[in-house]
């Protein structure tokens, strides 16, 4: 049986581990030059900082995952630096490209997609200025390359990553000028009962905020970013506090992010149906608790199948592999399966609370100024999208055809969520009815064939 695992982050590693245990040698494809995923991304060869310095409190998990990764590489058909840019579900074929040029097709009988997630952003005036990046991007720069986005960065957004990234920068020697959380403390407090489902993580979050304040970093909650200002690069953030007072905070860089969104394009191309997840305000591919999708042979695990974080990804990766083995009549670890099911149920409750604690500020997106640049690839403003809505753009794909939003390099991965909010408001329809951008190959730009 030909099994392919796409992704070598926490989910992919644990999936391959279970497959290898059962005597399967999967084709293992990773887009990055090495495994580890975004959270445990490894520094390039030659970098010498140790796990503790790079991953902080996650060092133990990172070390364990990297050890498993290294042990598994020789036992799989390991293909790093390889992009899966298309899936042909009828023929059960993947189209891949290695090192930006070498093309191949890979056959599969079963497929586990562990494609991870990316930052979810909210366009505000000035968000395309040099010096502005995502929270995840800022964190990876620090983790993998040992460089910061600035010496006095501002952090905007909400969610666990906001305070974590700010604290990591503070510890690395930067002086965060401001941490602006769009969520009110009351909202977080209301959800705190549910957060107890994962007490250590919850407590960690509170500790990070306290540590930031102790270092003199201003942390404001229930605040609104108005604009990133600067000539040629970001030099200040204009924002409004909960009491509606305006402030200008000078800075030399901005990191922004409002939680994560699944990178689910491959699941889409594989034919997996999607459902709207009210809680996470995301479209997510359908799967059962074990990672089985309605498409026979296609399994999903990790953040690419709905945001759960790295711990959940490890559990879900192993669980999806066990489901695959079971479905194909192969021996699988029944005890482990029961254990994973229990853990995943608990974590799902924690995740639900987390989404309630750190909601996407849909209102800010919906009230976005007409002049604000929404789609940076094609230079489409919120006003352009609203015009498209008036001209018959009754759902996102239609609005795309009319306005070009989401037609550029990112294929709507960046602008998709806020665009859906703007459209939903303009049409007076619930977000769910506005739909989602259909996946189209290539999922990322690839060189013209025949030109390598």
């Amino acid at each position, binding site marked *: 049986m030909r099994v392919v695992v796409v992704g070598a982050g926490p989910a992919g590693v644990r999936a391959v581990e279970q497959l290898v245990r059962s005597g399967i040698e999967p084709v293992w494809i990773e887009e990055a030059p090495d495994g580890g995923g975004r959270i445990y991304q490894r520094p390039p060869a030659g970098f010498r900082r140790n796990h503790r310095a790079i991953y902080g409190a996650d060092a133990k998990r990172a070390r364990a995952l990297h050890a498993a990764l290294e042990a598994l590489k020789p036992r799989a058909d390991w293909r790093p630096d390889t992009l899966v840019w298309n899936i042909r579900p009828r023929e059960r074929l993947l189209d891949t490209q290695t090192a930006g040029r070498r093309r191949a097709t890979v056959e599969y009988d079963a497929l586990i997609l562990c494609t991870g997630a990316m930052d979810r952003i909210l366009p505000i005036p000035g968000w395309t200025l040099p010096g502005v990046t995502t929270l995840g991007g800022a964190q990876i720069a620090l983790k993998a390359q040992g460089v910061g986005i600035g010496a006095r960065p501002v952090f905007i957004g909400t969610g666990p990553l906001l305070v974590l990234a700010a604290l990591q920068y503070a510890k690395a020697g930067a002086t965060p000028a401001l941490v602006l959380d769009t969520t009110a403390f009351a909202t977080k407090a209301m959800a705190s009962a549910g957060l107890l489902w994962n007490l250590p993580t919850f407590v960690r979050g509170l500790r990070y905020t306290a540590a930031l304040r102790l270092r003199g970093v201003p942390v404001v909650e229930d605040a609104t970013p108005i604009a990133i200002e600067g000539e040629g690069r970001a030099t200040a953030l204009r924002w409004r506090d909960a009491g509606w007072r305006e402030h200008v905070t000078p800075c030399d860089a901005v990191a922004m992010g409002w939680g994560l969104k699944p990178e689910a394009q491959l699941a889409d191309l594989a034919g997996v149906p999607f459902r709207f997840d009210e809680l996470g305000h995301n479209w997510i591919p359908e799967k059962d608790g074990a990672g089985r999708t309605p498409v026979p042979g296609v399994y999903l695990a990790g953040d690419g199948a709905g945001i759960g974080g790295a711990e959940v990804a490890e559990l879900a990766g192993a669980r999806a592999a066990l489901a695959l083995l079971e479905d194909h009549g192969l021996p699988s670890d029944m005890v482990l399966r029961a254990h994973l099911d229990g853990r995943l149920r608990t974590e799902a409750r924690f995740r639900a609370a987390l989404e309630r604690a750190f909601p996407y500020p849909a209102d800010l997106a919906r009230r976005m100024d007409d002049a604000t640049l929404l789609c940076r690839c094609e230079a489409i403003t919120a006003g352009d999208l609203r015009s498209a809505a008036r001209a018959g753009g009754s759902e996102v794909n239609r609005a795309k055809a009319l306005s070009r939003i989401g*037609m550029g390099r990112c294929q709507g991965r960046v602008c998709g969520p806020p665009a859906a909010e703007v459209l939903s408001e303009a049409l007076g329809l619930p977000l769910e009815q506005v739909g989602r951008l259909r996946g189209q190959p290539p999922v990322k730009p690839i060189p*013209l*064939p*025949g*030109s390598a």
Partner: protein
Amino acid sequence: MNRAIVIGGGLHGLSTALHLARMPGWQVTVLERRHVGRHSSGVNAGGVRRLGRDLREIALSMVAWEMWSNISALVGDDCGFQPGGQVKVAENAAELGKLEARAAQVRALGWTHEEVVDQAEVRRLLPAIAPHVVGALVCHGDGSADPMRTVMAFRRAAQEAGATIIEGSGVTAIERSGAGTLRVVTEEGTHEAERVANCAGAWATRIARMAGEEIPCGVKASMMIVTERLPHFCTPTVGPTGRALSFKQTVAGTVVIGGGHQGLNDPERETSTVLFGNLAHAARIAAELFPCVKGARIMRTWTGTEARTPDEIPVIGESRTMPGLFHSFGYSGHGFQLSPAAGAAVAELIARGATNLPVAPFTQRRFDA
């Protein structure tokens, strides 16, 4: 007031509705199963081309070109029309010979829009063309337009002229009433009209069949590639003589590559799928003609579903089994340019039973033999 139903909200349906709604005494309703411009109308390459047309199509294409040259007067928008010219290049002496023969044939019919140029002139027109190209057939004044913008302009103009456009309304039957009018049945209700136009594109043969008429016609799903933005290097739309390709650089800098390479088609599910093997072929030809696009990255690919007749020219004419029903479909992947003129012709056929526009060659009688 006479009533007309136009089945299909593609460009041909909208153009027919626009022209008819501007005639006194006609109340026009467009029934579109999904939404206007859903299939090939909204996603085609936007070629505004007289160059290389089937000889039977040239006359109508010339009328259409006149309309394109002043498209704002027709629909109140320039539709993004860029008359940058169309060029068919010859990659060897034999191909150049073919182009010369073609030009002579067109001239013999009295047309002068196609012109053979030598290697030096090709270089002047296309500085980035590969050195092996020896000459070309050129049509100045041709070019390309923005298909979705064109669809929306025709839609708006048709509505302003008084036409009603109903989206999400699929036709399930056509029948004749006791009073002699035509009844067009949809899932939502029945529309009655004196005249009906069948502009249903890839699904038009089904409409014909509802009227008891079999017209030979298949479907196609031409694929397109668009690259990332490149510095400006090419103004005209370009195609080779001996191979299938259409190549143009948009104002934004992206390169759109098409040329009839076929994807998978599923008319039942109303979807079409890109076949990358076929696309790779188009990309290779593009890189051979324009070496500077080598290594350019593909941003998106897509297909659009369209009807294709056995001889690749459209069917325009009244139904022989259900008088009062007029067909206009089967443009076989090159109907975009014809749409302003074809719509005018069908509107005249509907309103007056005859037209001076040159559509006689497109009667379905030609398949009788």
